[in-house]
């Protein structure tokens, strides 16, 4: 577009310069003010960066709700799909021994304390041994309540049929008093049952 070969005539440039020196005329100050004010007022709003737009979106309530919903759904899906850890793995002595084996070198590497106290020794005892057999009285005491709790759960009350058979067995053994007590106990448990008739029928069988 620009013709580089075009070289203006020096005489022509003198004429142009003469006119420039004597040219006058300015736009009115009010026109300047109006145009500049319009330019300032109608200046395009700066486009924020991607990071700023993201922050602005996060500050809007509806987007906050959307993000919270997505996060909640993701959390729920994570919880539902989470694979359960088998109890055998947790309770197996192998895993205990593994952790104990891992701890042993650390205990061995640690410099012996100048005045060894009994408490740290108890704390640093290998967990594998604790799992296999109670090594300390504290552990033995801790195991007892567990045994007590598991005992009632293991022994279920005898059924009516079993109770009647036990009564017949006691009577045949001549322990009529014990048989009567058992019958009374059964009557309390099954008040609507005709226990003598059932005993008789059982005896006939």
């Amino acid at each position, binding site marked *: 577009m620009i*013709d580089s070969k075009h070289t203006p005539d020096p005489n022509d440039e*003198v004429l142009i310069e003469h006119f420039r020196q004597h040219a006058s005329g300015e*736009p009115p100050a009010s026109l300047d003010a109006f145009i500049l004010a*319009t330019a300032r007022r*109608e*200046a395009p709003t700066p*486009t924020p960066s991607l990071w700023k737009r993201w922050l602005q979106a996060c500050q809007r309530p509806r987007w906050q709700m959307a993000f919270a919903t997505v996060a909640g759904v993701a959390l729920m899906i994570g919880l539902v799909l989470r694979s359960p850890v088998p109890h055998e793995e947790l309770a197996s002595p192998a895993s205990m021994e593994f952790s104990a084996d891992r701890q042993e070198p650390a205990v061995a590497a640690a410099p012996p304390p100048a005045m060894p106290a009994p408490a740290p020794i108890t704390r640093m005892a290998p967990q594998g041994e604790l799992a296999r057999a109670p090594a300390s009285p504290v552990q033995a005491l801790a195991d007892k309540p567990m045994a007590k709790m598991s005992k009632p759960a293991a022994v279920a009350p005898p059924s009516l049929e079993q109770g009647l058979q036990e009564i017949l067995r006691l009577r045949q053994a001549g322990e009529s008093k014990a048989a009567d007590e058992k019958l009374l106990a059964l009557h309390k448990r099954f008040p609507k049952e005709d226990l003598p008739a059932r005993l008789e029928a059982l005896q006939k069988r």
Partner: protein
Amino acid sequence: MTGKEFAPHMPAALDSSSDESLLARYRNGDGASFEVLYARHRQGLYRFLVSLSNKAELAEEIFQDTWLSLIRSATQPQGRASFRTWLFQIARNRLIDHWRRHGVHTPLHDSYDEQLHVQPDDTSSPEQQLSLSRDQARLDAALQALPEDQREVFLLRLHGDLELPQIAALTGAPLETVKSRLRYAQQKLHRLLAEEVPA
């Protein structure tokens, strides 16, 4: 208010930026860039319009219209066109539209036989060129005495500081035609403004 007095608060970095980059910055929301752009071109564009239309009120209307269309438009100079060429083209088109709306004959679009307007130029010597009239009224009268298309080319060169190829692109006239128009305009101006120099 003169051109030198009109100096908006502009940072030094903006002052050295090109017109095109200033316009791009304004389009991206930098209001200060427009003030620099306006300060650079307000005077040349205004004087071009006053001289071309020969009416101050009409020149002000077209001047305002040109800048407001630039503010409200999202376009940029296309191709290799400079901002200056683009700005003066907008102003020229607005003026022609105004003349058309008001039923005024558009002199810039006349087919014009350059040779018919050529008169002998007796003032080609440097001594006579240096003795051009400094009378403002005489300068203005000489400009108005030029044929419209010659005046337009001369004013674009004078106030727009445009090169001849830029003027050719702006007016849609062949480069050789633009060159001849400018040459004839300058010859006539020399003749009209030459003062009697005592021998």
